[in-house]
Structures are given as C-alpha cells and as structure tokens.
C-alpha cells in the first residue's frame, strides 16, 4: 500500500467511523438549522397541540386560512369532495343551547387507526408522533378514511393545480394535516399555530410533550385538558381545553 493509498484509506475510515458513531456531531458541524432538517426523527419528541377553545372566537378562521395558504388546499366549489385539512366545528349543547367552536384536524394519534388499516403502509406515524401519508405508495383505497374517527382525512377527487412545493398532493390519494411537518423539521411551528398567535386568540400551543420544560407540557400539567373521543384509546396528540 503506497502512502497516498494509506492516506485515502485512513480518511475514509475516519469518515465512516464519524458517520457511524457520531452522526449527530458530524451534522452539527453544518450548523443547527441544517442539523434540524437532516437529523433523524427521534421518538424522544412527541409533537402535540393544545387548543383552548375559550380563546377560539366564533367565526374566526385564521387557522383554517393559514393552513390553506401554507399547504395549498382550497375550495373548488365542490364542497362534498373538496379537501379540508382543518375545519372549525360548531358544537351546540342541546340542553342549554350554548355554542362553541373548535378547530379539528388530524389528531396525530399515538395509536392511529388509519396507520393500522393502511394495506401498504402509506399511512405512517413518524417517531416523533406526526401521522403522515406517503403519497408515493398510497393506492387510494380510502380504508384510512373509513377508520379515522375524526373525519380528518380527505381524498383528492380531481386534478390539482398550483401545488405548494412544501406540501405535495396527488389526485387519487388521501391526505390530511401534517402538522406542517416541513416547518417543524426546519425548527418552526405549524402555520395555524403561528396565525392564531399573531392575529387570533392565541388559542393554540404547539410543542414537544416529552419535554417537561416546553410550553405545552407546562400548560397540560397546569390545567385539565381533554382529547376528542379519548374513549377510543387512540391517544391523540391534539388536546383541547374547555371542550
């Protein structure tokens, strides 16, 4: 082995060792932002959302319009088939007549029914709790839509135009709220949460439930919150206060 060969070999060995033993450290060399985007998703985090519906004014749809703008879904005039990643549901107590509104989207369950029933594994849950659809292997069977108790998913019924590069969609496949996964991976918060905080009632708190110092963890431990259809045992990552 010549000196040059030996040097090349040592270099690649060091490189291999570094990527195998300390990938985090190697990536960190490129700066924190790059690290967030390329580091493997870890189960150490559980992304979650807390919505205080007392702070969610009737008629306000900032979260919905922010989601539309961010992810590119919109009304085509076909209400029954148009996708809705997030919607405001009006709840009326039949006893008292009192009404309230709650934003409802994919609840990012810990035990998602959509993931269980998906024949191809296109519906999947990331290690950090975000439930997504892999548009490349979704065959459009719609079994996940039958299985989701939250009516969170939409089927793309027609040709799409003007898609957003950050949220690719596809005719004949199923889609739903991604928690703005591309933003999360870039260290930002979902568009709905941002809009609600900036111009709305600041009803939404987003963060890592596994981090006791996060705002959401503190908020959840400070006062009672509930999950929609908690009885089903799916352990949704979206929690509500004053529901």
């Amino acid at each position, binding site marked *: 082995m010549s000196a040059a060969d030996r040097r090349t070999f040592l270099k690649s060995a060091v490189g291999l060792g570094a990527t195998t033993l300390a990938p985090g450290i190697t990536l960190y060399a490129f700066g924190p932002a790059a690290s967030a985007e390329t580091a493997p998703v870890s189960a150490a985090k559980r992304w979650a959302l807390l919505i205080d519906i007392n702070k969610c004014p009737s008629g306000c749809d900032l979260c919905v319009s922010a989601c539309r703008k961010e992810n590119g879904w919109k009304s085509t005039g076909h209400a*029954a088939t148009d996708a809705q990643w997030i919607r405001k549901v009006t709840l009326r107590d039949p006893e008292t007549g009192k009404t309230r509104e709650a934003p409802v989207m994919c609840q990012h369950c810990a035990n998602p029914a959509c993931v269980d029933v998906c024949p191809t594994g296109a519906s999947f849950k990331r290690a950090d709790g975000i439930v997504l659809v892999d548009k490349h292997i979704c065959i*459009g069977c719609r079994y996940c839509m039958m299985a989701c108790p*939250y*009516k969170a998913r939409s089927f793309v019924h*027609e040709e799409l135009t003007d898609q957003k590069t950050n949220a690719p969609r596809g005719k*004949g496949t*199923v889609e739903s709220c991604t928690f703005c996964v591309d933003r999360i991976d870039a260290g930002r918060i979902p568009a709905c949460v941002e809009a609600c905080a900036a111009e709305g009632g600041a009803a939404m708190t987003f963060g890592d439930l596994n981090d006791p110092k996060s705002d959401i963890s503190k908020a959840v431990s400070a006062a009672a919150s509930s999950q*929609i259809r908690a009885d089903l045992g799916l352990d949704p990552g979206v929690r509500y206060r004053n529901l």
Partner: protein
Amino acid sequence: MAKLKFRTLDQQSPSFWGLIVLHLVVVATGLGAALYMEEHGHIVTGMSNQVVWGLPHVFAVFLIVSASGALNVASVSSVFNRLAYKPYARLSGILAIALLLGGLAVLVLDLGRPERLIVAVINNNFKSIFAWNIYLYTGFIAIVGAYLFVMMDRRASQSAPTMKAMGWVAFAWRLILTTGTGSIFGFLIAREAYDAAIMAPLFISSSFLYGLAFTVLVLLMMSRETLSDLMPEEMVEKFSGLLMIFAFTTLYFTIVQHLTKLYAAAHVGVETFLLRDGGVYTIAFWFGQIVIGTLAPVAVLFFRGSGFSARSALTLASILFLFGGLAQMYVIIIGGQVYPLKLFPGMDVSSSFFDGAVGSYVPSAPEVLLGVSGISIAMLIAALAMRLLPFLPQAEPKGS
C-alpha cells in the same frame, strides 16, 4: 354409484351467444367507466369525503362474499361427504374463482390509483386487514385451483384422502376469507354501524346464501344450454332447502346485529336512522333486504310445488336472494357511512366539512357500469372455463 361423467359446454344456442355479447359489452363499458374515473378522478362519481366507498364497493364486496359461498357445493360434497353434490363440485369451484376475480377487478378499478396495484403487493402492512385480504384472496384462488386439479386430474382424483384434505383446506380457507371480508367492517371502531364482531359470521352466512344462489342460477342456465337436466328433482329439493336455511341464518344474524346496537343507548341514533328514518337506506333494508331479499324468496321456495313449478320457484328465489344481497350490502356499506361520525357525543355539531350531517350519495353512471361489470367479468370467466374444460356434470340418461 355410477361413475360420474363431466362435459364441457360444447354447444351454445344463439341466446347464449347473445348473453355472452351482452356481458362483453357490459365489461367494455365497465372498463371504459373505470378509465373515465381514473382520468377525471373520483369527482365523476357520487362518492365524496363523507361517503368514501360507493356502489363499486357494494358490487365488489357482494361478489367477493358470493365467491366464497359458491364453494359451498364442493365443500358439502368432499368435506361432508354428500355424494349427491359431487357432480356440481367442479362447477362450484370454478364459479368461486370467477366471482372472486369479478369482485376484485371492481375493487381494484375503484382505487384512487389502480395503476399502483403492484405497490400493494410489494409493500404490506401486516396489521392491516386489507393486507391480510390480499393474501386471503390470492390464496383462495390458488387453493381452489389446486382443489379443482385434484378433482379433475385422473390420478389425483383417485386418492380419497387427498380429495378430503383439499376439501378441508378450501373449506377452512373460505371461512377465514369471509371472516376477513366481514372484519373489514367489523374492525372499524370509528363507525357506529360497524365495529362489531358479528360482521364476520353475518358475512359468512350471507356468503352461503348468495354463493348458492349464483351456483343454482348458473346450473339452471347450463341445463338450458346443454339441453340436459343438470339438476334432477332431488337436487331442486336439496338446493331449495339449503337456500331457506341460509336465508334464515342470515336473517338471524341481521336481527342480532341490529338488536345489539338498539339495546345500547349510545347507538340508538344509528339504528333509528337505518331502520326508521334513513329514507332510501331504510327502504333498502326493509323492502330490499328483508321483504324482497328474504321473506318473498323463502315464501316462493316454501310453496314451490314440484316439477317445473319447483324449478321456476328456485330460479325466481335465487334471483331475489341476489337482489336482497345487493340491498344488504348497500345498507351496510353506504348506509353505514352516511350516518355521521360522532366526534362529540351529546353535542349537536355542524361544520363546512359536513360534521354531524347525514351524508348524501347518489351513484353516478360510471359507478353503476363498473359495479355491474364485475358480475359480467365473473360470468365470462365461468363461461370460458366451462367451454374449455369439463366442469359441467353429464346428466345421466333417463331411466338409468
């Protein structure tokens, strides 16, 4: 007992050719409809984000359920050793495969991305009952194919233990398969109309009924074509009796299914909807499934008389049972979906996404064409198979 003889469908009447042409036209329009749906998306169907499975699923599930039931006759002959059914075992096997292929074709062509079918073969999530079903369906075709081989191969058919073993495997497999089909609905915790273990036995019992009705109708049709009596009086009696038993079993499971839900205050809403206030779904249930699809054909069979009258009664009853089966699937699949999901029990809810609202569904022409083409696909496969190989029993000469 005389040695059984079998024959191919070697002579066809002009009316039979007419029927074949009709089936070909139906299949062609069905495929055209599927292409149209694929090109434009499901916007051209009556389906929506509220009713995600429409008429194609009604036909597909109906055919898949019928397929496993069509194997009845073969099972009765080899598993339960009833020799009278043996002449029909081959036909029952090939019909089972044909019906399954017809149902699967519709199911696949209704996918949002049917061209990605290969993905479903390569990527499997084994927690999904849909993924299990992929193996149950292909396994069914392979096992029934092997079963037919054992029945039809000169040497293999000599071995009684092999025949018995294959009969048992096929019988067990068809029970598991229909358990799987029923559980597609039974496992759905989200929807109140489903989420019940009884869906599996209900589907099994329905499969016995529809499968036998299909077998009987094909046999009667073939009797006409071959100008020979493939179904002697004795078999008319046996088939009529079996159909009545299967109709009552299905009715029994249906009653238990609804009573169980009705008893729970939480589910009274969905039951009131399906049984009383559901409009077209209530009519489909009471008039379609119960009156036309159960009580009327049972009465027809009960008062069937004998000879020609009994044969006509059996024909009519079988047609009515199949009609009832489609009605039953319509109520289960569509009726179960239009009833809104209950996200907030105890609250009246509304939204732009139709929360709390009863969904509306009107099948479009492409869906009807695609759904009906499943039946034609099955019939064409069966006819072709019978033309090529000896699936039909050779009627014994009169007086022997």
